[in-house]
């Protein structure tokens, strides 16, 4: 059972992020059925209620639709995918800026470094 989640951050939040990334990368497409709570819980070695909470949150955001008898389905269109992409990107960029600021870089220095890095790739 691989430990994919860090334990110093709420696991349900990490699970939500992971699912959103899966949607954005196309791993889960529109109308795909999400795995049952128990299966996901077993896969990642987490509590079923945690999975339930993540699913409920996605439902609340309208990304997932639950059909009472058959399960949970991805409920997205191109626009929602873009929104998700934007949301995730902003989160990662915020993290990047926070970390680099921590080691003393200014906003301008960060942007320069990013450009240089991209060019050399």
């Amino acid at each position, binding site marked *: *059972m691989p*430990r994919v*989640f*860090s*334990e*110093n*951050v*709420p*696991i*349900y*939040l990490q699970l939500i992020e992971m699912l959103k990334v899966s949607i954005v990368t196309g791993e889960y497409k529109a109308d795909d059925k999400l795995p049952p709570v*128990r299966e996901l*819980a*077993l896969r*990642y*070695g*987490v*509590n*079923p*209620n*945690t999975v339930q*909470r993540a699913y409920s949150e996605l439902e609340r955001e309208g990304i997932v639709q639950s059909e009472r008898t058959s399960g949970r389905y991805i409920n997205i269109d191109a626009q929602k995918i873009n929104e998700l992409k934007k949301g995730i990107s902003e989160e990662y960029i915020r993290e990047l800026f926070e970390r680099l600021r921590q080691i003393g870089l200014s906003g301008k220095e960060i942007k320069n470094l990013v450009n240089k890095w991209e060019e050399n790739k």
Partner: protein
Amino acid sequence: METLVCEGLSKSYGSKLALNRIDLRLEEGRIVGLLGPNGSGKTTLIKLASRLLVPSEGRITICGEEPSEITKALISYLPDRNFLPDWMNSEELLQMYGDFFGDFDEVKALEMLNNLNIDMKMPIKKMSKGTRDKVQLILTMSRHAKLYLLDEPIAGVDPASRDYILNTIINNYDEEATVLISTHLISDVESVLDEAIFLKEGEIFLHKNSDELREETGKSIDEYFREVFRC
């Protein structure tokens, strides 16, 4: 429904106070960690719930009933030691559990034992420690109880068996039952816990939802535990 309620529960052994005025309420559908160092009172609490001990003061109820032979039928208890008659083999044990516990799922237990290729005719005393532990776990988790009490289920267990045990607990999840896992090996189990109870010197230091605790402290439960119980 509350499966376990403690009100002002205290237990002393002679002059030693093991549990001091414990107030606790556990809901069904939760996997709860009872966390504390050795000697903090975890096993005492579990024994009070299963009526292997009687309270010195206060009250403890299981599904609203005081501990009795009736509540014992609602509880599935896995002690932290070898408790099975070692002259019996798995086949006989399945029969015995089925005989005494109305909620015992013999089919499920047999399936789990077969999945592990356990020799049904081998007496317990001939089994390796790892196999014996698994048999005890399988018997305990094959009951459809309201309250599962697991006392140190992963202590002294190899990593692969540990995964098996945690998988069994997750797979067995029942939204009408509570699983109380008592352990001092927190990092191995914390991702499976809904709630964490820190038991410090016989008192409840905290009782919180796991993710809330992570959010509030910015630490893993294991990290925060080490901070709280630093010597």
